[in-house]
């Protein structure tokens, strides 16, 4: 079960939706890593085919297949670590939608993290853009949350999975905040300013 202590939510506040990019952002990187895993074999085959003299001139001691396996396993480990470094950046780049606000966690690089909060009463509009065959079939697109705040810009995320659900949840929370009696909203603001 997920635990959101690091977000420092209010006592009556809970995360109702996590918004992340679609898994397709990984396809390009995964393909390149797969290619990288195959490259040693391709290089060996090419050398054996077009420059076999290279093998004749190299005097390699010991068990050559074991040596190749040793280097190849280290190469795969390197690719494996690279994949998870990229995955971590993808996974930690997220919007947390609560009953009161949207928390935008922008993991730009591994040691570069920016967190922005946007209260629902500051939202002017939510725009989603699903463009093209692939986005329509796989249900992903870009989501833009326009704000009325002077000190914060719009929230924007591309390749969001299930963007319509994101828009629906944000709008429903925005409307719920708007429908609350003014006195209750003012008392909430007063509690937060203490």
């Amino acid at each position, binding site marked *: 079960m997920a635990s*959101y202590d*690091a977000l420092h939510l209010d006592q009556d506040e809970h995360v109702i939706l996590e918004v992340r990019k679609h898994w397709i952002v990984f396809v390009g990187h995964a393909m390149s890593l797969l290619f990288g895993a195959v490259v040693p074999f391709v290089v060996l085959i090419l050398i054996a085919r077009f420059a076999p*003299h290279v093998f004749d001139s190299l*005097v*390699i*001691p010991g068990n050559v297949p074991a040596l190749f396996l040793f280097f190849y396993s280290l190469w795969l*480990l390197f690719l494996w670590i690279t994949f998870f470094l990229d*995955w971590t950046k993808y996974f930690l780049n997220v919007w947390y939608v609560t009953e009161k606000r949207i928390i935008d966690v922008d*993991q730009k690089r*591994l040691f570069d993290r920016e967190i922005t909060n946007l209260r629902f009463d500051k939202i002017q509009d939510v725009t989603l853009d699903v463009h093209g065959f692939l986005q329509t079939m796989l249900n992903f697109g870009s989501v833009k949350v326009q704000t009325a705040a002077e000190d914060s810009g719009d929230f924007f995320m591309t390749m969001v999975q299930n963007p319509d659900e994101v828009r629906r949840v944000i709008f429903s929370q925005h409307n719920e905040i708007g429908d609350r009696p003014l006195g209750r909203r003012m008392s909430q603001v007063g509690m937060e300013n203490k």
Partner: protein
Amino acid sequence: MDTQFPPLQMPNLPFLKLSFILNVPVLTGALIIFFVGYVILTSVLMYHWSAYGMRHQGVLIARTLFLLVSAVLFIIALLALSYF
């Protein structure tokens, strides 16, 4: 008059003995250096997953998968080195 040209041949390359670099002590040292780098990067990843992962199920799966496959690859490297 028929002239037959000799087939195109690559020039002979000088022999290169790699025993000075491809030996068990050097390869073990390379493995240790690689392992140190792996530990540093794994610590960075573990810190990020613990601090910001919110104990999400995806993080738990990722952590298990990452360590499991890494262990298998290190074992393969060690076995390959022992058979070298």
